Structures are given as C-alpha cells and as structure tokens.
C-alpha cells in the first residue's frame, strides 16, 4: 500500500485524536515498518489493517466509519496534489464512471506498483450509476467517502447505498443516485 495513505492516515489520527493516539497505535500494532512511513514508500496492507483495528478499538468507532472519514480527508490530498485531473470533469457521475478507464490508468502511470480496486459499471444514466466494487482489501467505505467528497467537489450531493455481494466485503454494489 502506498506510503501516502499511511502518512495521511497518521496525520488525520494526529489531527483528530492527538499525537498520543498515534503513538498508542504504533506501539500496539505489530508493524514491520515500526511506524516509519514516508509518502513515497510502499508498505504492507496488513499494517493498515492493524492500525485501523487498533484505532477502532481505541476510539470505539467502526472501521467502516473510520475509512469513510479517512477517505473524505484523503480527497483533500487529491484536490491539492492533482487538481488537473479533477478539472477534466464537469459532472460527478461522469467522473465516477471513468474511475476504471481514466483515473486508475493515470494513477498507474504515477504509481506503477499501486494495487487498485476495480469498479465495474453495471448501470448508468445521466444522474444515476450502479458500480460493482471488487477488492481483496474490502475498503468499500474508503470508496464511499471519496464518492461523497466527489459530489461535494462539484457542489452536488447524492444518496449512495451499499449492498455487500460477498460477506467479507470484497465485492460490494454501489447504488448512486444524484440528488437534484
């Protein structure tokens, strides 16, 4: 998993819960990297899982909720770092529909070893979209957070429903309905 995810995650934890929480997480999670992350490095996904697990336990917040919050924060990173990519779109549905064909292609160019989920388009109208999420990471709520922020970015809002196709969350259907 890309280092920027870890650094941004720990930064968010530090913002929300203080440096103590960051220290506690690192102390309690058995991390191969010992919590030493740099945005340009690459680290084990299991480390993220441990961090999330411990944060959830330490704060009493569900992992899904944590991921959603982290995603909303992370969207700000994207807005800052890659504004051109977002400017290429005028509509949130269009942008979400082109995750697979455009955005992930661009991501692969920058991070050639990135392991990305797939978003298969099942249905699409001008204001609705049904996507099938597939990833061994089961980080569907990270996606949900990014999607919410996407609508917000275009001054729009949407109701997004999730339906787990597989219980472990590795396959999830997203029903996205843009709100007028």
């Amino acid at each position, binding site marked *: 998993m890309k280092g920027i995810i870890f650094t941004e995650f720990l930064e968010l934890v530090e913002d929300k819960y203080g*440096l*103590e929480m*960051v*220290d506690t997480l*690192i102390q309690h999670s058995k991390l191969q990297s*010992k*919590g*030493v*992350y*740099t*945005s*340009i*490095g690459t680290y084990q996904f299991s480390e993220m899982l441990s961090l999330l697990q411990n944060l959830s336990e330490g704060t009493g917040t569900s992992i899904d909720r944590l991921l959603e919050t982290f995603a909303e924060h992370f969207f700000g990173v994207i807005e800052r770092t890659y504004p051109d990519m977002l400017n290429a779109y005028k509509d949130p549905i269009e942008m979400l529909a082109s995750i697979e064909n455009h955005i992930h292609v661009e991501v692969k160019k920058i991070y050639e070893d990135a392991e990305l989920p797939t978003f298969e388009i099942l249905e699409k109208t001008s204001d609705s979209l049904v996507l099938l999420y597939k990833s061994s990471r089961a980080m569907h709520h990270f996606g949900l957070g990014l999607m919410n922020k996407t609508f917000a970015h275009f001054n729009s809002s949407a109701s997004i429903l999730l339906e787990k196709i597989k219980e472990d969350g590795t396959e999830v259907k997203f029903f996205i309905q843009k709100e007028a």
Partner: protein
Amino acid sequence: MNSEKIAILQRALTREKAARKEAEKILEKKAAELYALTQELSETNTRLEKTIQQKISQLQVFESIVDAYVVVDFNGEVLKMNESAIALLGYDFRKAPVFLLDLVEERMRERTQNAFSTLIKEGLLKNFQMEIFSKDGQQKIVQINASMLYDENQVPIAAQGIARDITQQQASEDRLISSESRLTTLITNLDSGVLLEDEQRKIVLTNKKFCELFSIPVSPTEMVGLDCSNAAAQNKHFFEDPAGFVKGIDKIIRKRKLVLGETLAFKDGRIFRRDYIPIFKDKEFQGNLWSYKDITLETKYQQSIEAEKQKYSNIIANMKLGLLEVDNDEKIAMLNQSFSEMSGYSEEELIGKTASTLFLEGEQSEVNSKERSKRNQGLFNSYELQVKTKQGESRCWLISGAPNYNLNGKVIGSIGIHLDITEMKTLEVQKEVLLKKLKTRNAELQEYAHIVSHDLKSPLRSINALVNWLKEDNKGVFDASSLRNFSLIENTLEKMENLISGILNYSSIIENTKKHQQVDLNILLEELKAITYFPAHISLKVTNKLPKISGDPIRLQQLFQNLLNNAIQHIDKEKGLVEVDVVEHLSYYQFSVKDNGIGIEKKYHNKIFKIFQSLNTHNESTGIGLSIVKKIVDLYKGEIWLESDVGVGTTFYFTLIK
C-alpha cells in the same frame, strides 16, 4: 512536560528521522534510475539524428533520379531541382528564381493552387495530373507525386515532388482509344460475323453480320453479356450435322487451339467458313473469338471451277498429244502422260530440266530458240523439230506453241503441244517417191505403147506390102482358093492393125482436166455424122436437143463414135436406124444410143465392156470399142448399162454429170 509526553515525542521524532532517511534513500535510488534513463534517452537521440541524416541523404538520391525532382517552398518557389527537372521544364533555379505557378496556364492556376493546399494540409499528393508550359513554350502533361518535408519538430518546411512527363503516354492512350473505336467500327461493319466471348463464355462483342447470319432478332449491343454455354445446342438445328456441330464446338473450346477455315454446311444450303481464335494475354486464357463468313457463292464457284479443271485435266492427261509447259529459262514445269510416252522419259526425269538440251542437237536447237523467242514476244507458232528420245531414237515432232501468261499478263513461259509425225513424215516421203515412180512408169508405159504399136504396125505393113507384091507377081497363077486365103491374110492384117490402134487409143485415155471445155453435143454429133461411114440403109436420128457438157471434146467424140460404130456394125436389118436421145435429171444427163441390130444375150451384158471381148468375128470389130466407152464413162464418173432383145436391137444407156 511530563516524561510520558517526552517519550512519545522522542518516539515520534525517531520515526520522522527514520522516515526522512528512508525517503532520501528512495529518492537517491530514483535519481540513479533517472540518470540511467537520461543516458538511454541520449542514445536514442543519437540514433534519431542518424536516421534524420539518412533521410536527408535520401533526398540527394532523389536529386539524381531519372524523374524530375523539385523542392518548393510555400510560395511555390523552387528551392531545389535536379537535372531531369531542368530538362523537363527548361528553367534553372540556379540562374533565375522559378515559380511553379508561372509554368501553369492562367485557367489552370486555381486547380493547381487547390492541389498545393491539399498537399500542405494532408502532407501527400498522389498522381496529380496537370498541364504545364516549359520555357520553350511546349505544352506538357505531367503527373505529380508530392509530399511535405518537415523539420525535427515536425513542422512543415517545404514540399518535394516528382514530376513525370506523361505527354507521350497520354498521346498514346488517346491513340489507343481512337484506334479501339476504329476497330470497333470496323468489326461492326465487317462482312464476317464476329463473336467475342470472355473466359466465362459471356459475349463481349458481336456485330450486325453475325446476327444476320444466325437470324438473331436483336441488335449486337443487346447480345453483350449473354451466356454462350448453350448457344451451340440452341443453334444446332441450322446445320446439316447438328450433333457434329455441337461436338465440334465443344472440342474447340476444350482444346483452345487456333482453328482456321472450317466449313459448315447449313440445312438451307448455305455454307459458312468458321475461324476460331483463342485469346491469350501473357499466357492466360482471355476468351474465344469466332468468325463466320457465308461462302456459299464462293464454294459453288469453286466447285464448278474444280469440275472444269478436272475435266480439262482429264482431257490433257488422256489426249494423244504431248503437252509440255516450260518457264522462261526453258525449264520444264509440267507435262502430261502422252509427252512422257513420246519422249521416253518419266515425269520425274523431266521436271526442272532444260527441254532443249535433253531433246535437241545442232541446228535443231537454233530452230527451237528462234521459235521460242517468237513466243516470248507473245506470238503463237507451229513448227517441226527433229528430236532425240531417251532411247536415242530420232523422231519428228510437230510443235504448236503458245506463250503462257501469269495473272498480271506477264509472259512466264510457254506451253507446247507435241505431235509425233515421224510415221506420217515417212508415209509422205514414201508417197512422193511412189508418185514420182508412177509418173515415170506412166510416161514409160505410154511411150512403150506408142513404140509397141508403131513397131508392131510397121511389120504388119511390110507383110501387107509383101502379100500385095506376091498377088501382083503371081497374078493369074494362084487359084481361087489361094486368092481367098490371101484375102483372109489381108483381112487378118487389117484386124491386127485395128487392134493395135485400139490399144493405142485405150492406153492414151488419161484424165486431164486441163483440156476441159464446154462442148455442144449437137455440133459434136453433126461432125461425127460427117466423118463416120454410115451405109446407105442405116440412118441416124437425134431425138431431142442435146445439152452442152463440160469435158474433153476428143474424149466425148470417142465416146459417141465408138457407140455409133458399135450400133452400125451390128445392124442386120434391111433398114437400119440408130437413135440418140437424152433425158435430163437433177444432177446428170442420161444419154441413150439405140439400134435395131442383132441384140446381145443377157449373159454377155457384163462381158462386152471388157477389153478384147468381141461377140462376133465381124471384120471391123476389135473388141476394144466398148472398153474405151466404159473407160471414158468411168473417167467422167458416169455409169453405163444396156437393154437388149436378141434379134430386135440394143439400147446403151450412160450418164454424164452436169
């Protein structure tokens, strides 16, 4: 700050440091990777530059190519041109600026400019044809292939083009088209029916005549594209041998070999000549070309000519005359069987040989060449030649020659007809010899008769004289019996003399038409009456007026005189009468001399005309008179016969041609 907080911060600091170091390490690694990439890039650049250099040198290759090569800028000004281009256009950019548009005629400028814009926009211009005027004012048609030239940043900098002079090509294409249209017109109006099929047997071209010949009710243009696979079966009913026609076509189509001059007989009596030409292009089969021509008339002519020829050939082969044809060098070109038999040489031995050297010797050759030169002047001639046959036999040939002309009326030799007249010649010579001999013999005989009669008469006269002398000298001495004997001797002597005179007369009767003249028989009879001794009791009566006759007066006198004498001698009645009469017939006169004498028995009627045949012992009868009569009548191609009643009289009839 409590120690707990310090520991947390220290740990965080340691982590940050470690993270920085790791980041640095990663960055260094990235930098190294970047350096390697840069190196690689610079190598690629070098390679690229080399490629560009090659491209440029290829441009120089263009300069030396055979076709005209021109590089122009965006204004159409020539930046570069090769020798071919200078030769084509007549302008040289090294001497004065050359603008492409200046070469184009005013009215063509817009089109040219459009093409140039297309070239700039699309980078390529293919097979663009335009008319230009070279410096010397010649109009040329050129075909242009052009492309843009770019700098290293792919910015177009100029246009390059190859111009090919296709003026000649265009002209030959035009000529091709016009010759094609001429050919089509020619085929359309051809007197032969033409059918051209492609390899699928679909009609490509046919003409009016073809439709006429096969009574096809549509026009030739409507026939194009029709399938001919079944045409033979559909049209076979036209032909005398329908199955054979279909089979023949199938065979030809299968073989795809040239078949010329086939004749096809139609049921309606027409005869066609068919030519088949398979069409191949580069050994690849392209189709069938059929040509039909109605040759009914020609065939009939030809057949009758053939029959005539056969007839005359038969005549020539079978005629008994030798036929020989020679060329102007006297080389034998043709002969018939008879000539071969005449000459003793076979046909093979004669053809191509010189006739005169084979057959002629010495002066005969000169005669021959003289006659031949006459023929060369176009004259007909006929002459005799002494020739030598193969067996060395000398023969005489009568040759009738005529000059032989070719179709252009030029003498190409002569034809001679040869008749072997050796036998005839011999006969003629024999006849001449015989005639000569006969003449001499006749003369001799006449002379002999004269001599004989003269010589015989003189001893007779001597005997007569001696007998008279004996009678004179012994007058009164001889008794009556002796005197009677003397008288008998005298009578016998007289008879003997008459006999001799008769023979002389008889032998001198020879036809001589030179002495013929118109003889009035009335006058002739008057004269005869005067000179002939008529006893008193005998009278002559000419019953009708006698005609005039063409003949020898002496012979005619002999004829009548002998008949009159014969009548007088045999009259035993007291009053004798001799009647002469004539009856005119269409082509002859029938004369009669009638007496009332003793008459002649039937059995003697033929005998009396023979010489020395006398029925009585009358003193004056020599038995020659009627022989002379018969001989003269024969001479004048008449007939003589008699009617007689013994004791009553005799009538002699004879005819003389008018």
